[in-house]
């Protein structure tokens, strides 16, 4: 077979494989939505007390659409768009601050044994504490804007820190040797070998951190102190008004946002690796 037709056959196989995957995915999603609709219908027909907690897919879909136009019925002026915006802003700040602290700290702890021995006990004590345990004190001290940001910071900080430390220690010693024989002194080894070598590890830390970040922000915004904004607050508010259709719609929004941000991180990771020539 000539080269081009081999390539064509390969592309065809890939396309078919993707279609199969898509169809299989749609099948399971459809089964889920159908069972959900049946369950919801059954509960309301039988007059079950659980019925209000299981609105049908159609109601949730309608709530999803209308949440972008207006708020939970009975409230005005609170829209999904604003809630998404304030959660995103908090995630952004939490993330940025975590990066600004974790990156230099990780580089320092990975490079110098003394600093690692000094920092490690602290890291080991604070890392296992769920960031959410800090919610009460953070909300009281830092209030409704910076409080949730602090929680996101804690959630994102450790994955990045640990990955950067690991990255620095995993730097290929042969590359360091090569750089030294080419005339690189300590600082050049750091900027031209260590820094580029840890980029993939940093990206892993960021991806893990993003997942944790979304969990943190939602829970932090739900705390009974009036945070007043954010998707977490919106979940809590709709439940408070017994509008479970809006609540589920918001949960769906949170899932989609998390997929979106992880997708963006993956895209950046791919771009960076291609630019750096590591695949």
């Amino acid at each position: 077979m000539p080269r081009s037709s081999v390539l064509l056959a390969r592309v065809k196989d890939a396309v078919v494989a993707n279609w199969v995957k898509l169809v299989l995915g749609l099948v399971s999603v459809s089964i889920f939505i159908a069972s959900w609709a049946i369950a919801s219908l059954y509960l309301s027909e039988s007059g079950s007390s659980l019925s209000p907690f299981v609105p049908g897919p159609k109601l949730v879909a309608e709530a999803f659409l209308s949440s972008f136009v207006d708020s939970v019925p009975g409230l005005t002026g609170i829209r999904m768009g604003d809630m998404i915006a304030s959660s995103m802003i908090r995630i952004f700040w939490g993330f940025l601050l975590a990066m600004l602290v974790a990156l230099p700290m990780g580089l320092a702890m990975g490079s110098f044994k003394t600093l690692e021995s000094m920092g490690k006990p602290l890291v080991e004590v604070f890392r296992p504490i769920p960031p959410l345990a800090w919610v009460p004190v953070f909300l009281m001290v830092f209030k409704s804007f910076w409080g949730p940001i602090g929680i996101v910071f804690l959630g994102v900080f450790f994955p990045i820190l640990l990955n950067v430390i690991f990255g620095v220690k995993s730097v290929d010693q042969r590359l360091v040797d090569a750089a030294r024989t080419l005339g690189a002194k300590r600082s050049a080894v750091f900027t031209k070998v260590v820094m580029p070598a840890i980029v993939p590890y940093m990206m892993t830390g960021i991806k893990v951190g993003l997942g944790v970040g979304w969990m943190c922000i939602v829970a932090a915004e739900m705390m009974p102190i009036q945070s007043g904004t954010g998707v977490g607050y919106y979940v809590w508010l709709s439940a408070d008004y017994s509008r479970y259709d809006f609540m589920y719609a918001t949960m769906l929004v949170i899932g989609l946002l998390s997929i979106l941000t992880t997708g963006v991180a993956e895209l950046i990771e791919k771009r960076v690796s291609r630019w750096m020539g590591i695949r």
Partner: protein
Amino acid sequence: MSACIEIRGLSKVFASGKRRVVALADMGLEVADGEFVCLLGPSGCGKTTVLRIIAGLEPATGGEVLVHGKKVESAGPERGMVFQEFALFPWRTVRRNIEFGLEIRGVSEKARHELSSGLIELVGLKGFEDAHPDELSGGMRQRVGIARALANEPTVLLMDEPFGSLDAQTRNLMQKELLRIWSATRKTVLFVTHSVDEAVFLADRIVVMTARPGKVREIIPVSLPRPRDRTSAEFIAVRGRVLAELDEEFEKAREKELSPD
């Protein structure tokens, strides 16, 4: 010809915990300017350690190494090194790998480009300037490794089993290529290998080392004209002589491994 590398009473002891391994004991050697010398010996005899000490990557336990009369204290760009596993920077293109040393020295971008273009031409990598190492074959990667070491215009080229991980055909081709590059640049080359065939094909002199602790057992000059014919009677005769020396050391190394110490 003046001495380019002088090794005097060199010893190296690796200590980890209670274990002490004497890798080198009282090794001495002189390599002349422009000479091609191969270091040959059973594995674990400290050939690579010698090279790393000359490169300044490893401190000596005793003795000293002089390069052009200057004592080796640390790594420096006048001693280029080529590694067995290539050790190319995976995130840099061929050109940027070659320019690494020039960047460190602060050579201007324009001058860097000119120099690297010449080297790319010399090692036969034209058309691959913008490729990353993982897109290249083993032989091509080592061409980058050689060009990168040459970019600093070192007086000495230290080569640590540079073709050890290549297949037989590529290896033979790279040996010829190396001789072509060597005759074009006239660097002093110290080449570590465990292949007798490779040593006889390349070297002006072959230094056979003893089993651990390593020192010089015998120096065998190879006066055959280049290009050398591996199938010629003279080639086979030299090969036989080197092998006989080496076999005894292999035997010693084996006995040592078997006896508990």
